[in-house]
């Protein structure tokens, strides 16, 4: 078997349609001034936009039919995330989709009322991190009375979440605690200040809370692993979209800005990095849709794991580079808050940190590719 391995990309008519609809929706509902108007609001997104997304069925795409979902598989959400990334549209779709995947995979056939709630717009989120390390095992646990002990960091969209899936350890194995918002006193949720202002996350202190349900058993660990890979893929899809938009912004500027009597886009020192970004954006999209092709409702296999990790490693670095050069190439303008370059470079840093950075994934890819028997 070759190291390049599986190179399948399939794109169904349904996915093509979804991509079209999502891009059109984002153009109409999330033009840049609308996105910017939300940057410094407490909620961070427009509830009407979220409602419209729910009505389009985006929260239900990958959920099972028994819970009111469309059962199109986790890869089918990818075009939506790419379109949202292009528009820099926040909203809790990422947190909610991943929480739905985790619940469905860790406890198949159970908690369908929660999934049904999610399908119709209830926000859900995974509380996984306890520090900055994506590779750390959870320390959160239950005390003798069955109450949680621990504090979770950077919990996405905690400010609006109706459901929390808290990752903990029970008898040294990973487990999940399902909580409803009502179980958490508002003082337990302390909003974080994020570099990407289109995002919201908080520290959530769960100590003393009794879970609504405890999910244990052999399905939890693989479900967590698969959802981390899907998280990497979805964030990569958003990043691929953001990087493409960032490139367009930079190219527009290079075509209109004159210095020393010349359009600055005629200088090779700016042209060639722009081409490099284009090629990296191309690679990002290719990896992302390759990943979307290989992930399914079942456990992710080796090829799918490689695809998700490569997508994240690629798209993360692409957006970091595109954002970095966007600021630089806009000159003095690029140093202002008014210039969109700041949105991209800030998003890039957030993206880098979500579901493992490029080094995290390449380290694991090395094992998968070079140590295979």
């Amino acid at each position: 078997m070759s190291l390049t391995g599986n190179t399948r990309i399939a794109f169904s008519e349904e996915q093509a349609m979804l991509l079209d609809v999502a891009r059109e929706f984002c153009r109409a509902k999330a033009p840049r001034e609308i996105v910017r108007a939300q940057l410094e609001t407490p909620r961070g997104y427009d509830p009407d936009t979220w409602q419209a997304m729910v009505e389009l069925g985006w929260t239900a795409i990958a959920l099972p039919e028994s819970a009111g979902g469309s059962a199109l598989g986790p890869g089918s959400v990818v075009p939506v995330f790419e379109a949202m990334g292009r528009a820099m549209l926040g909203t809790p779709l990422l947190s909610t989709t991943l929480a739905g995947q985790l619940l469905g995979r860790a406890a198949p056939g159970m908690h369908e009322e929660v999934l049904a709630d999610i399908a119709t717009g209830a926000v859900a989120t995974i509380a996984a991190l306890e520090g900055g390390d994506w590779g750390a095992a959870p320390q959160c646990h239950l005390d003798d009375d069955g109450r949680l002990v621990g504090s979770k960091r950077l919990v996405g969209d905690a400010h609006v979440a109706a459901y929390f899936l808290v990752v903990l350890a029970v008898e040294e194995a990973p487990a999940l605690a399902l909580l409803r918002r009502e179980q958490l006193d508002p003082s337990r949720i302390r909003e974080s200040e994020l570099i990407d202002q289109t995002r919201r996350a908080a520290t959530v202190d769960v100590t003393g809370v009794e879970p609504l349900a405890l999910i244990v058993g052999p399905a939890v660990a693989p479900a967590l692993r698969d959802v981390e890979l899907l998280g990497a893929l979805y964030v990569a899809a958003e990043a691929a979209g953001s990087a493409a938009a960032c490139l367009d912004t930079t190219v527009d500027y290079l075509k209109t800005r004159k210095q020393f009597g010349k359009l600055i886009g005629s200088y090779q020192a700016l042209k060639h990095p722009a081409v490099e970004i284009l090629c990296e954006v191309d690679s990002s999209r290719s990896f992302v849709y390759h990943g979307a092709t290989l992930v399914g409702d079942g456990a992710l296999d080796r090829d799918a794991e490689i695809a998700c990790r490569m997508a994240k490693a690629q798209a993360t670095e692409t957006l970091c580079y595109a954002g970095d050069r966007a600021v630089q190439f806009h000159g003095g303008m690029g140093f202002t808050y008014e210039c969109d370059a700041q949105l991209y470079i800030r998003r890039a840093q957030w993206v880098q940190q979500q579901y493992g950075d490029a080094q995290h994934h390449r380290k694991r890819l090395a094992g998968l590719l070079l140590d295979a028997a």
Partner: protein
Amino acid sequence: MTAPQNELDAFRADVSAWLRDNRPADPGFLLPQTFMEVGSDEQLDFLREWQYKVWSAGYLGLAWPKAYGGGGMDPAFQSVADQEMRRAGVPICFNVIGLGWAGPLINDIGTEEEKAKYLKGILSGEDIWCQGFSEPDHGSDLGNAQTRAVREGDEYVVNGTKIWTTMGNYAKYMILLVRTDPEAQRKYDGLSFFLAPMAVPGVETRPIRKLTGEYGFTETFFTDARIPAECLMGEEGDGWKIAMKTLQYERGAEAGAAGGLAFVRIVIDDLVAGLAGVRRDGAPVLEDPLLRDQLVRLVMEEKAIALGDRRAAIAPLATDYPLSLPLSHKLRWTEHTRRMRQFAINAQGADGARYVGDDDALAGGFWQRAYLNSFSATIGGGTSQVQANIIAEHVLGLPK
């Protein structure tokens, strides 16, 4: 005409078995990885014998007419043979200018006489072909070619210089682009195309020594060289049109090539296999965390190019800059190749300092030579920098 799958499968089994039994033994010297690297007589003799053997076995020129030495079969059979040769990792079929460019051209627009005279010798490897397009002062600007041909009776008298003539010193024929009418209103209309013999007085070749220390190209000088008028292809003034058609074969945009391997494909798996015995810090080099990271990056580069080829065929996923993937392929592949080969030297530790000819060099210095040769692809056919300009201007729409 579509070949039945069962016939193709049976044919594949035949080729595969034949290759297993007839794979040439290691000659004891490094073989060229591309047809542009044939630098010594022993390499030429070896490759010539191999091509003859492949053709005699019926695995070359399968889709060319039977009357001219071909197989008269569906092109699908040649594709199968090529795939099997690639899989088996056998040497190249070296007469690439003939097999891939001049041959299909003659097949498509040549006269019966031309077909009868040239095609069989191309397939057997008896008649080596070279190309006289580039000139020292006009590397990429083909339309500006200045080598002159003036008609005198039944002959044309040719004066000028061509460069980067692959196997110029071995070739019997050259596809030659010359200026017959310097007064033409459009510079392109003054060009003509010849199927020119090399063994005539006034044609001299001077081998160009490459940065590898080897040979493979020549500079070709024409000094009052007399070429029979019947060697003119088409009419006077058709040169540009025919040259462009030739380039379509060269770029694989038009079918018709005789087949065979034009180059040995070196992929990341070859590198990983090649490094199996190399150690660093007392442990296998493939366990070194920093080199592992670099290797993963290289695998990703290679895979991204393969995925891009797939995605380019899916219209809804290639909407934003539809020309981006096809136009950037050459830039990406050649630059990746260069980086990978540089890494291959780097990963060898102190032995990376050795070169071809050193008995202790890893794989006979294969990677060192391959790295130096990789520049033929990042420079030839439009440098990477020119490619980047083309992409910037034609894909991104940036100003000149």
